[in-house]
Protein backbone atom coordinates (compact mmCIF):
# COMPACT_ATOMS: atom_id res chain seq x y z
CA UNK A 1 0.00 0.00 0.00
CA UNK A 2 2.71 2.45 1.01
CA UNK A 3 4.73 1.28 -2.01
CA UNK A 4 1.85 2.17 -4.31
CA UNK A 5 1.38 5.62 -2.77
CA UNK A 6 5.09 6.41 -3.04
CA UNK A 7 5.15 5.20 -6.64
CA UNK A 8 2.16 7.30 -7.66
CA UNK A 9 3.58 10.37 -5.95
CA UNK A 10 6.95 10.18 -7.70
CA UNK A 11 5.41 9.09 -11.00
CA UNK A 12 2.96 12.02 -11.01
CA UNK A 13 5.79 14.40 -10.11
CA UNK A 14 7.98 13.02 -12.91
CA UNK A 15 5.28 13.17 -15.59
CA UNK A 16 4.06 16.66 -14.65
CA UNK A 17 7.63 17.99 -14.53
CA UNK A 18 8.41 16.37 -17.89
CA UNK A 19 5.37 17.97 -19.52
CA UNK A 20 6.40 21.33 -18.08
CA UNK A 21 9.96 20.87 -19.40
CA UNK A 22 8.81 20.63 -23.00
CA UNK A 23 6.19 23.34 -22.85
CA UNK A 24 7.77 26.27 -20.96
CA UNK A 25 8.78 29.37 -22.86
CA UNK A 26 11.57 30.35 -20.48
CA UNK A 27 14.55 27.99 -20.79
CA UNK A 28 15.59 28.42 -17.16
CA UNK A 29 12.14 27.31 -16.02
CA UNK A 30 12.50 24.24 -18.23
CA UNK A 31 15.84 23.50 -16.61
CA UNK A 32 14.38 23.73 -13.11
CA UNK A 33 11.53 21.41 -14.07
CA UNK A 34 14.00 18.95 -15.59
CA UNK A 35 15.88 18.94 -12.28
CA UNK A 36 12.59 18.15 -10.53
CA UNK A 37 11.88 15.33 -12.99
CA UNK A 38 15.35 13.90 -12.34
CA UNK A 39 14.83 14.06 -8.58
CA UNK A 40 11.48 12.28 -8.99
CA UNK A 41 13.26 9.58 -11.01
CA UNK A 42 15.80 9.28 -8.22
CA UNK A 43 12.92 8.76 -5.83
CA UNK A 44 11.62 5.94 -8.02
CA UNK A 45 15.06 4.35 -8.00
CA UNK A 46 15.09 4.50 -4.21
CA UNK A 47 11.66 2.88 -3.99
CA UNK A 48 12.98 0.10 -6.25
CA UNK A 49 15.73 -0.52 -3.68
CA UNK A 50 18.46 0.79 -5.98
CA UNK A 51 20.11 3.00 -3.34
CA UNK A 52 23.46 3.44 -5.07
CA UNK A 53 21.76 4.45 -8.30
CA UNK A 54 19.57 6.89 -6.35
CA UNK A 55 22.56 8.75 -4.99
CA UNK A 56 24.46 8.52 -8.30
CA UNK A 57 21.44 10.07 -10.03
CA UNK A 58 21.44 12.94 -7.52
CA UNK A 59 25.19 13.56 -7.59
CA UNK A 60 25.81 13.11 -11.32
CA UNK A 61 22.58 14.00 -13.06
CA UNK A 62 21.07 16.68 -10.84
CA UNK A 63 24.21 17.99 -9.21
CA UNK A 64 26.46 17.77 -12.27
CA UNK A 65 24.67 17.66 -15.60
CA UNK A 66 21.88 20.06 -14.62
CA UNK A 67 24.38 22.57 -13.22
CA UNK A 68 26.16 22.35 -16.57
CA UNK A 69 22.89 23.01 -18.40
CA UNK A 70 22.06 26.00 -16.20
CA UNK A 71 25.58 27.42 -16.76
CA UNK A 72 25.25 27.17 -20.53
CA UNK A 73 21.73 28.61 -20.47
CA UNK A 74 23.04 31.63 -18.65
CA UNK A 75 25.85 32.04 -21.15
CA UNK A 76 23.60 31.83 -24.23
CA UNK A 77 20.43 33.32 -22.83
CA UNK A 78 18.80 35.55 -25.38
CA UNK A 79 15.90 37.77 -24.44
CA UNK A 80 15.00 37.73 -28.12
CA UNK A 81 14.41 34.00 -28.04
CA UNK A 82 11.75 34.46 -25.34
CA UNK A 83 9.45 36.28 -27.72
CA UNK A 84 9.88 34.11 -30.81
CA UNK A 85 7.80 31.16 -31.85
CA UNK A 86 8.63 28.26 -29.58
CA UNK A 87 7.32 25.32 -31.53
CA UNK A 88 8.21 23.88 -34.89
CA UNK A 89 6.10 24.82 -37.91
CA UNK A 90 5.34 21.14 -38.50
CA UNK A 91 4.35 20.42 -34.95
CA UNK A 92 1.22 18.48 -35.91
CA UNK A 93 3.23 15.90 -37.88
CA UNK A 94 5.54 15.50 -34.89
CA UNK A 95 2.60 15.04 -32.54
CA UNK A 96 0.97 12.51 -34.87
CA UNK A 97 4.20 10.55 -35.04
CA UNK A 98 4.55 10.50 -31.28
CA UNK A 99 0.95 9.49 -30.73
CA UNK A 100 1.28 6.58 -33.15
CA UNK A 101 4.54 5.43 -31.56
CA UNK A 102 3.14 5.80 -28.08
CA UNK A 103 -0.03 3.91 -28.96
CA UNK A 104 1.97 1.04 -30.44
CA UNK A 105 4.16 0.74 -27.34
CA UNK A 106 1.11 1.11 -25.10
CA UNK A 107 -0.66 -1.73 -26.88
CA UNK A 108 2.47 -3.87 -26.69
CA UNK A 109 2.75 -3.39 -22.95
CA UNK A 110 -1.00 -4.02 -22.42
CA UNK A 111 -0.84 -7.28 -24.30
CA UNK A 112 2.34 -8.64 -22.79
CA UNK A 113 2.18 -7.58 -19.16
CA UNK A 114 0.20 -10.65 -18.09
CA UNK A 115 3.15 -12.87 -18.89
CA UNK A 116 5.35 -10.55 -16.84
CA UNK A 117 2.96 -10.71 -13.87
CA UNK A 118 3.33 -14.49 -13.92
CA UNK A 119 6.96 -13.95 -12.92
CA UNK A 120 7.17 -13.58 -9.14
CA UNK A 121 9.29 -10.61 -8.11
CA UNK A 122 12.61 -11.58 -6.66
CA UNK A 123 13.08 -11.07 -2.90
CA UNK A 124 14.48 -7.70 -1.93
CA UNK A 125 17.50 -9.42 -0.35
CA UNK A 126 18.79 -10.27 -3.80
CA UNK A 127 19.74 -6.61 -4.24
CA UNK A 128 21.36 -6.22 -0.79
CA UNK A 129 24.03 -4.96 -0.08
CA UNK A 130 23.45 -2.75 -3.05
CA UNK A 131 26.68 -0.77 -3.26
CA UNK A 132 28.87 -3.83 -2.83
CA UNK A 133 26.99 -5.79 -5.50
CA UNK A 134 27.14 -2.91 -7.97
CA UNK A 135 30.85 -2.46 -7.25
CA UNK A 136 31.49 -6.17 -7.74
CA UNK A 137 29.66 -6.10 -11.06
CA UNK A 138 31.40 -2.96 -12.27
CA UNK A 139 34.92 -4.00 -11.36
CA UNK A 140 34.80 -7.74 -12.00
CA UNK A 141 32.16 -8.76 -14.50
CA UNK A 142 31.85 -5.57 -16.53
CA UNK A 143 35.30 -4.07 -16.14
CA UNK A 144 35.79 -3.70 -19.91
CA UNK A 145 32.71 -1.47 -20.41
CA UNK A 146 33.85 0.44 -17.33
CA UNK A 147 37.24 1.17 -18.87
CA UNK A 148 35.60 2.09 -22.18
CA UNK A 149 33.30 4.48 -20.31
CA UNK A 150 36.31 6.20 -18.74
CA UNK A 151 37.94 6.57 -22.16
CA UNK A 152 34.63 7.99 -23.43
CA UNK A 153 34.59 10.54 -20.62
CA UNK A 154 38.19 11.49 -21.39
CA UNK A 155 37.35 12.00 -25.06
CA UNK A 156 34.27 14.05 -24.15
CA UNK A 157 36.35 16.21 -21.79
CA UNK A 158 38.99 16.93 -24.42
CA UNK A 159 36.34 17.54 -27.08
CA UNK A 160 34.40 19.91 -24.86
CA UNK A 161 37.49 21.92 -23.96
CA UNK A 162 38.64 22.16 -27.58
CA UNK A 163 35.23 23.23 -28.83
CA UNK A 164 34.65 25.90 -26.25
CA UNK A 165 38.07 27.52 -26.71
CA UNK A 166 38.20 30.75 -28.67
CA UNK A 167 41.45 29.90 -30.39
CA UNK A 168 42.82 26.38 -30.57
Amino acid at each position, binding site marked *: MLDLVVFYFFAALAVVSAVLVVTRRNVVHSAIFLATALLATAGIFLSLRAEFLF*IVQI*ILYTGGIMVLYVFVIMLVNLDVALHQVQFNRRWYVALLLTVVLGAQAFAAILVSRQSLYALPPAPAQALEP*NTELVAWGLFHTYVLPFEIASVLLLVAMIGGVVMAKKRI
Partner: protein
Amino acid sequence: MDLNAILQWPHLVPLICALAIVLVLPLVAGYIVLVERKVMADMQVRLGPMRVGPHGLLQPIADAVKLLLKEDIIPENADRYIFWLAPLISVTAAMLALSAVPIGPVFLIADLNIGLLFILGVGALGIFGIVLGGWASNSHYSLLGALRSAAQLVSYETSAGMAVVGALLLAGTLSTRAIVERQAQDGVWFLFAAPVGFFVYLVASIAETNRAPFDMPEAESELVAGYMTEYSGFRWALYFLAEYTNMIVVASIATTLFLGGYLRPFAGTPIFDFLDYLPALLILLVAGYCFYRAPKQPVSVQKGFMAVVGLLCGGMALLLALPVAAPAGSFLAGAKPGLHGAFWFLAKVGAYLYVFMWLRFTFPRYRFDQLMRLGWQFLLPVSMANLAGIAAALALHRGLGWGVVPSFALTTALTVAAAAYLVWIGEKHEVGKIGEEETAGNA
Protein backbone atom coordinates in the same frame (compact mmCIF):
# COMPACT_ATOMS: atom_id res chain seq x y z
CA MET B 1 -2.15 5.26 23.25
CA ASP B 2 0.02 4.75 26.30
CA LEU B 3 3.34 6.45 26.86
CA ASN B 4 5.32 3.23 26.57
CA ALA B 5 4.07 2.49 23.08
CA ILE B 6 4.99 6.01 21.96
CA LEU B 7 8.44 5.74 23.50
CA GLN B 8 9.07 2.43 21.74
CA TRP B 9 8.19 3.88 18.33
CA PRO B 10 11.38 3.46 16.25
CA HIS B 11 10.92 6.76 14.45
CA LEU B 12 10.69 8.79 17.66
CA VAL B 13 14.37 9.71 18.10
CA PRO B 14 14.86 10.58 14.39
CA LEU B 15 11.74 12.76 14.52
CA ILE B 16 12.97 14.59 17.63
CA CYS B 17 16.40 15.07 16.03
CA ALA B 18 14.83 16.38 12.82
CA LEU B 19 12.60 18.81 14.74
CA ALA B 20 15.58 19.92 16.81
CA ILE B 21 17.63 20.59 13.70
CA VAL B 22 14.94 22.57 11.90
CA LEU B 23 13.89 24.59 14.94
CA VAL B 24 17.18 25.07 16.72
CA LEU B 25 19.60 25.35 13.82
CA PRO B 26 18.76 28.95 12.85
CA LEU B 27 19.40 30.02 16.44
CA VAL B 28 22.63 28.03 16.58
CA ALA B 29 23.78 29.52 13.26
CA GLY B 30 23.09 32.99 14.63
CA TYR B 31 25.22 32.26 17.68
CA ILE B 32 28.01 30.85 15.52
CA VAL B 33 28.01 34.23 13.77
CA LEU B 34 28.35 35.88 17.17
CA VAL B 35 31.20 33.54 18.09
CA GLU B 36 32.90 34.39 14.80
CA ARG B 37 32.61 38.11 15.50
CA LYS B 38 34.01 37.64 18.99
CA VAL B 39 36.89 35.51 17.68
CA MET B 40 37.56 38.06 14.97
CA ALA B 41 37.61 40.78 17.59
CA ASP B 42 39.94 38.77 19.78
CA MET B 43 42.38 38.28 16.92
CA GLN B 44 42.20 41.98 16.14
CA VAL B 45 42.76 42.97 19.79
CA ARG B 46 39.33 44.42 20.38
CA LEU B 47 36.14 43.33 22.09
CA GLY B 48 33.49 42.69 19.45
CA PRO B 49 29.76 43.16 20.05
CA MET B 50 29.27 44.18 23.67
CA ARG B 51 26.19 46.37 23.71
CA VAL B 52 23.20 44.17 23.09
CA GLY B 53 22.72 42.00 26.16
CA PRO B 54 25.52 41.00 28.53
CA HIS B 55 28.72 40.72 26.52
CA GLY B 56 26.71 41.02 23.32
CA LEU B 57 24.92 37.72 23.80
CA LEU B 58 21.59 38.99 22.50
CA GLN B 59 23.19 40.35 19.31
CA PRO B 60 22.00 37.47 17.08
CA ILE B 61 18.46 37.95 18.31
CA ALA B 62 18.60 41.66 17.53
CA ASP B 63 20.01 40.88 14.09
CA ALA B 64 17.30 38.32 13.41
CA VAL B 65 14.53 40.72 14.43
CA LYS B 66 16.00 43.43 12.21
CA LEU B 67 16.26 41.11 9.22
CA LEU B 68 12.70 39.88 9.65
CA LEU B 69 11.30 43.40 9.77
CA LYS B 70 13.19 44.73 6.73
CA GLU B 71 11.39 45.66 3.54
CA ASP B 72 11.26 42.85 1.00
CA ILE B 73 12.68 44.23 -2.24
CA ILE B 74 12.47 42.34 -5.52
CA PRO B 75 14.41 43.97 -8.37
CA GLU B 76 12.52 45.13 -11.43
CA ASN B 77 12.44 42.58 -14.29
CA ALA B 78 13.68 39.91 -11.93
CA ASP B 79 12.12 36.49 -12.29
CA ARG B 80 9.87 36.46 -9.23
CA TYR B 81 9.44 32.73 -8.85
CA ILE B 82 13.11 31.84 -9.19
CA PHE B 83 14.03 34.80 -6.96
CA TRP B 84 11.78 33.27 -4.30
CA LEU B 85 12.94 29.71 -4.96
CA ALA B 86 16.73 30.11 -4.92
CA PRO B 87 17.38 30.72 -1.18
CA LEU B 88 14.89 27.95 -0.44
CA ILE B 89 16.92 25.45 -2.48
CA SER B 90 20.14 26.44 -0.68
CA VAL B 91 18.64 26.10 2.78
CA THR B 92 16.80 22.86 2.00
CA ALA B 93 19.90 21.21 0.55
CA ALA B 94 22.04 22.25 3.52
CA MET B 95 19.56 21.08 6.15
CA LEU B 96 18.80 17.83 4.31
CA ALA B 97 22.51 17.04 4.35
CA LEU B 98 22.46 17.20 8.13
CA SER B 99 20.11 14.24 8.30
CA ALA B 100 22.80 11.58 7.83
CA VAL B 101 25.29 13.14 10.24
CA PRO B 102 26.01 10.99 13.33
CA ILE B 103 25.96 13.33 16.31
CA GLY B 104 25.96 10.35 18.64
CA PRO B 105 25.42 6.61 18.31
CA VAL B 106 21.70 7.27 18.79
CA PHE B 107 21.29 10.86 17.58
CA LEU B 108 21.15 9.96 13.93
CA ILE B 109 18.14 10.84 11.83
CA ALA B 110 18.80 8.15 9.27
CA ASP B 111 21.52 5.53 9.29
CA LEU B 112 21.66 5.20 5.52
CA ASN B 113 23.76 2.54 3.83
CA ILE B 114 25.06 5.30 1.60
CA GLY B 115 25.18 7.94 4.32
CA LEU B 116 28.39 9.73 3.39
CA LEU B 117 27.60 9.82 -0.32
CA PHE B 118 24.15 11.17 0.53
CA ILE B 119 25.64 14.08 2.50
CA LEU B 120 28.05 14.90 -0.34
CA GLY B 121 25.39 14.60 -3.03
CA VAL B 122 22.69 16.60 -1.33
CA GLY B 123 25.22 19.23 -0.30
CA ALA B 124 26.10 19.58 -3.97
CA LEU B 125 22.47 20.50 -4.71
CA GLY B 126 23.12 23.80 -2.94
CA ILE B 127 24.99 24.97 -6.05
CA PHE B 128 21.61 25.30 -7.75
CA GLY B 129 20.49 27.79 -5.16
CA ILE B 130 23.54 29.95 -5.79
CA VAL B 131 23.37 29.91 -9.59
CA LEU B 132 19.62 30.48 -9.77
CA GLY B 133 19.84 33.26 -7.18
CA GLY B 134 22.48 35.07 -9.15
CA TRP B 135 20.57 34.72 -12.40
CA ALA B 136 17.19 35.68 -10.97
CA SER B 137 18.51 38.98 -9.64
CA ASN B 138 18.74 40.40 -13.17
CA SER B 139 22.00 42.18 -12.36
CA HIS B 140 25.48 41.82 -13.84
CA TYR B 141 27.29 41.65 -10.50
CA SER B 142 24.99 38.93 -9.26
CA LEU B 143 25.32 36.81 -12.37
CA LEU B 144 29.10 37.07 -12.44
CA GLY B 145 29.36 36.35 -8.75
CA ALA B 146 27.02 33.38 -9.05
CA LEU B 147 28.90 31.87 -12.00
CA ARG B 148 32.23 32.36 -10.25
CA SER B 149 30.93 30.88 -7.05
CA ALA B 150 29.43 27.88 -8.80
CA ALA B 151 32.64 27.29 -10.79
CA GLN B 152 34.63 27.42 -7.56
CA LEU B 153 32.29 25.00 -5.80
CA VAL B 154 32.33 22.52 -8.66
CA SER B 155 36.12 22.65 -8.93
CA TYR B 156 36.78 21.96 -5.27
CA GLU B 157 34.07 19.33 -5.05
CA THR B 158 36.19 16.89 -7.07
CA SER B 159 39.20 17.27 -4.77
CA ALA B 160 37.04 17.04 -1.65
CA GLY B 161 35.35 13.94 -3.01
CA MET B 162 38.66 12.23 -3.71
CA ALA B 163 39.99 13.06 -0.26
CA VAL B 164 36.80 11.56 1.18
CA VAL B 165 37.19 8.44 -0.98
CA GLY B 166 40.73 8.04 0.35
CA ALA B 167 39.39 7.87 3.90
CA LEU B 168 36.52 5.63 2.75
CA LEU B 169 39.09 3.09 1.56
CA LEU B 170 40.22 2.83 5.15
CA ALA B 171 36.68 2.60 6.46
CA GLY B 172 35.34 0.10 3.97
CA THR B 173 31.76 1.33 4.23
CA LEU B 174 29.63 4.33 3.34
CA SER B 175 27.40 4.29 6.42
CA THR B 176 28.42 7.14 8.72
CA ARG B 177 27.87 5.26 11.95
CA ALA B 178 29.87 2.29 10.65
CA ILE B 179 32.74 4.60 9.70
CA VAL B 180 32.94 5.89 13.28
CA GLU B 181 32.66 2.37 14.67
CA ARG B 182 35.47 1.30 12.36
CA GLN B 183 37.68 3.99 13.83
CA ALA B 184 36.87 2.67 17.29
CA GLN B 185 37.76 -0.85 16.16
CA ASP B 186 41.00 0.13 14.50
CA GLY B 187 41.88 2.18 17.56
CA VAL B 188 43.17 5.11 15.51
CA TRP B 189 41.45 8.09 13.94
CA PHE B 190 41.74 8.14 10.16
CA LEU B 191 43.46 11.51 10.53
CA PHE B 192 46.66 9.73 11.49
CA ALA B 193 46.43 7.22 8.67
CA ALA B 194 45.64 9.83 5.97
CA PRO B 195 46.98 13.24 7.08
CA VAL B 196 47.39 14.49 3.50
CA GLY B 197 43.77 13.57 2.83
CA PHE B 198 42.69 15.57 5.87
CA PHE B 199 44.71 18.57 4.70
CA VAL B 200 43.20 18.37 1.19
CA TYR B 201 39.71 18.06 2.67
CA LEU B 202 40.34 21.03 4.97
CA VAL B 203 41.35 23.30 2.10
CA ALA B 204 38.63 22.00 -0.21
CA SER B 205 35.93 22.44 2.43
CA ILE B 206 36.94 26.05 2.99
CA ALA B 207 36.53 26.62 -0.74
CA GLU B 208 33.27 24.64 -0.79
CA THR B 209 31.64 26.94 1.70
CA ASN B 210 32.89 30.15 0.06
CA ARG B 211 34.88 31.12 3.16
CA ALA B 212 37.98 33.26 3.20
CA PRO B 213 40.58 33.02 1.84
CA PHE B 214 38.41 31.63 -0.99
CA ASP B 215 35.55 34.11 -0.74
CA MET B 216 36.19 36.09 -3.91
CA PRO B 217 32.60 35.55 -5.13
CA GLU B 218 31.12 37.22 -2.09
CA ALA B 219 33.80 39.66 -1.07
CA GLU B 220 32.51 43.14 -0.52
CA SER B 221 35.29 44.93 -2.31
CA GLU B 222 35.12 42.76 -5.40
CA LEU B 223 31.62 42.13 -6.63
CA VAL B 224 29.53 43.99 -4.08
CA ALA B 225 28.16 40.82 -2.54
CA GLY B 226 28.17 38.45 -5.48
CA TYR B 227 25.02 36.42 -5.89
CA MET B 228 23.58 37.88 -2.68
CA THR B 229 23.66 41.48 -3.87
CA GLU B 230 19.96 41.92 -4.58
CA TYR B 231 18.76 39.88 -1.64
CA SER B 232 17.79 41.76 1.50
CA GLY B 233 16.02 41.03 4.73
CA PHE B 234 14.76 37.54 5.30
CA ARG B 235 15.92 36.11 1.97
CA TRP B 236 19.49 37.19 2.73
CA ALA B 237 19.12 35.63 6.16
CA LEU B 238 18.15 32.35 4.46
CA TYR B 239 21.30 32.44 2.29
CA PHE B 240 23.39 33.22 5.34
CA LEU B 241 21.76 30.38 7.24
CA ALA B 242 22.49 28.07 4.30
CA GLU B 243 26.16 29.12 4.29
CA TYR B 244 26.63 28.47 8.01
CA THR B 245 24.72 25.21 7.84
CA ASN B 246 27.02 24.17 5.01
CA MET B 247 29.96 24.96 7.27
CA ILE B 248 28.50 22.71 9.95
CA VAL B 249 27.91 19.98 7.36
CA VAL B 250 31.48 19.96 6.05
CA ALA B 251 32.80 20.11 9.61
CA SER B 252 30.62 17.10 10.43
CA ILE B 253 31.91 15.16 7.43
CA ALA B 254 35.51 15.91 8.42
CA THR B 255 34.79 14.95 12.03
CA THR B 256 33.09 11.70 11.06
CA LEU B 257 35.72 10.64 8.57
CA PHE B 258 38.97 11.93 9.99
CA LEU B 259 38.53 12.95 13.60
CA GLY B 260 36.73 9.95 15.02
CA GLY B 261 33.14 11.25 15.06
CA TYR B 262 31.50 10.86 18.42
CA LEU B 263 34.35 8.80 19.94
CA ARG B 264 36.44 10.04 22.79
CA PRO B 265 40.22 9.95 22.31
CA PHE B 266 41.50 6.37 22.61
CA ALA B 267 38.00 4.96 22.41
CA GLY B 268 39.06 1.39 21.89
CA THR B 269 41.45 0.90 24.81
CA PRO B 270 39.93 0.41 28.29
CA ILE B 271 43.11 1.70 30.00
CA PHE B 272 42.15 5.22 29.05
CA ASP B 273 38.66 4.99 30.57
CA PHE B 274 39.58 7.79 32.96
CA LEU B 275 39.31 10.07 29.92
CA ASP B 276 35.54 9.66 30.27
CA TYR B 277 35.74 12.25 33.04
CA LEU B 278 37.37 14.72 30.67
CA PRO B 279 34.14 16.36 29.37
CA ALA B 280 32.88 17.03 32.91
CA LEU B 281 36.33 18.33 33.90
CA LEU B 282 36.52 20.72 30.95
CA ILE B 283 33.11 22.19 31.66
CA LEU B 284 33.92 22.46 35.37
CA LEU B 285 36.98 24.49 34.37
CA VAL B 286 34.74 26.84 32.37
CA ALA B 287 32.38 27.10 35.39
CA GLY B 288 35.33 27.82 37.66
CA TYR B 289 36.53 30.56 35.33
CA CYS B 290 33.05 32.11 35.34
CA PHE B 291 32.92 32.12 39.14
CA TYR B 292 36.44 33.55 39.24
CA ARG B 293 35.52 36.45 36.94
CA ALA B 294 32.12 37.12 38.52
CA PRO B 295 33.32 39.37 41.38
CA LYS B 296 35.50 41.38 38.98
CA GLN B 297 32.58 42.58 36.82
CA PRO B 298 31.85 46.28 37.16
CA VAL B 299 28.05 46.05 37.09
CA SER B 300 25.93 43.88 39.39
CA VAL B 301 23.82 42.58 36.46
CA GLN B 302 26.95 41.22 34.85
CA LYS B 303 28.03 39.68 38.16
CA GLY B 304 24.72 37.87 38.40
CA PHE B 305 24.95 36.85 34.76
CA MET B 306 28.42 35.30 35.16
CA ALA B 307 27.23 33.48 38.28
CA VAL B 308 24.26 32.07 36.38
CA VAL B 309 26.48 30.93 33.51
CA GLY B 310 28.80 29.31 36.04
CA LEU B 311 25.91 27.48 37.64
CA LEU B 312 24.66 26.30 34.24
CA CYS B 313 28.10 24.98 33.38
CA GLY B 314 28.26 23.25 36.71
CA GLY B 315 24.92 21.60 36.03
CA MET B 316 26.13 20.46 32.60
CA ALA B 317 29.30 19.05 34.13
CA LEU B 318 27.19 17.12 36.62
CA LEU B 319 25.01 15.84 33.80
CA LEU B 320 28.10 14.60 31.98
CA ALA B 321 29.79 13.11 35.03
CA LEU B 322 26.83 11.19 36.46
CA PRO B 323 26.51 8.57 33.69
CA VAL B 324 30.17 7.69 34.09
CA ALA B 325 29.96 7.34 37.88
CA ALA B 326 26.61 5.51 37.82
CA PRO B 327 26.62 1.71 38.14
CA ALA B 328 26.57 -0.10 34.81
CA GLY B 329 23.16 -1.18 33.52
CA SER B 330 21.16 1.62 35.12
CA PHE B 331 19.28 4.18 33.07
CA LEU B 332 21.95 6.82 33.71
CA ALA B 333 24.73 4.59 32.45
CA GLY B 334 22.64 3.85 29.34
CA ALA B 335 22.53 7.57 28.61
CA LYS B 336 26.33 7.80 28.59
CA PRO B 337 27.03 6.97 24.92
CA GLY B 338 24.45 9.50 23.73
CA LEU B 339 25.49 12.38 26.00
CA HIS B 340 29.23 11.90 25.78
CA GLY B 341 29.04 11.15 22.08
CA ALA B 342 27.19 14.40 21.49
CA PHE B 343 29.76 16.31 23.59
CA TRP B 344 32.78 14.94 21.76
CA PHE B 345 31.17 15.38 18.34
CA LEU B 346 30.17 18.98 19.03
CA ALA B 347 33.60 19.71 20.51
CA LYS B 348 35.36 18.42 17.38
CA VAL B 349 32.99 20.27 15.06
CA GLY B 350 33.58 23.40 17.13
CA ALA B 351 37.35 22.98 16.85
CA TYR B 352 37.09 22.53 13.07
CA LEU B 353 34.94 25.66 12.80
CA TYR B 354 37.44 27.54 14.97
CA VAL B 355 40.16 26.60 12.46
CA PHE B 356 37.89 27.96 9.69
CA MET B 357 37.55 31.27 11.53
CA TRP B 358 41.25 31.37 12.36
CA LEU B 359 42.18 30.93 8.70
CA ARG B 360 39.65 33.57 7.69
CA PHE B 361 41.25 36.24 9.81
CA THR B 362 44.81 35.28 8.95
CA PHE B 363 45.12 34.96 5.18
CA PRO B 364 44.44 37.50 2.43
CA ARG B 365 41.99 36.64 -0.28
CA TYR B 366 42.88 34.54 -3.32
CA ARG B 367 42.32 36.10 -6.73
CA PHE B 368 39.88 34.08 -8.80
CA ASP B 369 42.40 32.72 -11.30
CA GLN B 370 44.76 31.81 -8.48
CA LEU B 371 41.85 30.07 -6.80
CA MET B 372 41.04 27.98 -9.88
CA ARG B 373 44.67 27.17 -10.46
CA LEU B 374 44.99 25.99 -6.88
CA GLY B 375 41.92 23.81 -7.20
CA TRP B 376 42.73 22.12 -10.49
CA GLN B 377 46.51 22.13 -10.66
CA PHE B 378 47.43 21.54 -7.05
CA LEU B 379 44.64 20.06 -4.95
CA LEU B 380 43.28 17.62 -7.52
CA PRO B 381 46.69 15.97 -8.25
CA VAL B 382 47.48 15.88 -4.53
CA SER B 383 44.18 14.22 -3.72
CA MET B 384 44.71 11.69 -6.52
CA ALA B 385 48.21 10.99 -5.15
CA ASN B 386 46.68 10.61 -1.69
CA LEU B 387 44.14 8.12 -3.03
CA ALA B 388 46.86 6.10 -4.76
CA GLY B 389 49.00 6.30 -1.62
CA ILE B 390 46.28 5.00 0.70
CA ALA B 391 45.43 2.21 -1.73
CA ALA B 392 49.13 1.27 -1.86
CA ALA B 393 49.38 1.39 1.93
CA LEU B 394 46.37 -0.89 2.30
CA ALA B 395 47.79 -3.26 -0.31
CA LEU B 396 51.10 -3.37 1.55
CA HIS B 397 49.44 -3.82 4.93
CA ARG B 398 46.67 -6.27 4.08
CA GLY B 399 48.14 -7.90 1.02
CA LEU B 400 51.84 -8.23 1.73
CA GLY B 401 51.53 -8.26 5.50
CA TRP B 402 53.69 -5.23 6.33
CA GLY B 403 53.08 -3.55 9.66
CA VAL B 404 50.64 -0.66 9.91
CA VAL B 405 53.14 2.08 10.72
CA PRO B 406 55.77 1.35 8.03
CA SER B 407 53.27 1.03 5.18
CA PHE B 408 51.31 4.18 6.02
CA ALA B 409 54.44 6.19 6.85
CA LEU B 410 56.01 5.26 3.56
CA THR B 411 52.98 6.18 1.46
CA THR B 412 52.36 9.41 3.38
CA ALA B 413 55.99 10.39 2.75
CA LEU B 414 55.57 9.65 -0.97
CA THR B 415 52.33 11.69 -1.13
CA VAL B 416 53.96 14.63 0.66
CA ALA B 417 56.87 14.40 -1.80
CA ALA B 418 54.42 14.50 -4.72
CA ALA B 419 52.66 17.54 -3.19
CA ALA B 420 56.00 19.30 -2.67
CA TYR B 421 56.92 18.59 -6.28
CA LEU B 422 53.63 20.11 -7.42
CA VAL B 423 54.23 23.22 -5.31
CA TRP B 424 57.73 23.54 -6.78
CA ILE B 425 56.41 23.24 -10.33
CA GLY B 426 53.73 25.81 -9.56
CA GLU B 427 56.28 28.29 -8.25
CA LYS B 428 58.52 27.74 -11.25
CA HIS B 429 55.56 28.40 -13.54
CA GLU B 430 54.70 31.67 -11.79
CA VAL B 431 58.29 32.88 -11.58
CA GLY B 432 58.83 31.94 -15.24
CA LYS B 433 55.94 34.15 -16.30
CA ILE B 434 57.18 37.15 -14.38
CA GLY B 435 60.67 36.62 -15.82
CA GLU B 436 59.29 36.60 -19.37
CA GLU B 437 57.35 39.78 -18.75
CA GLU B 438 60.47 41.55 -17.56
CA THR B 439 62.57 40.51 -20.53
CA ALA B 440 59.76 41.42 -22.92
CA GLY B 441 59.53 44.86 -21.32
CA ASN B 442 63.25 45.43 -21.55
CA ALA B 443 63.66 44.20 -25.11
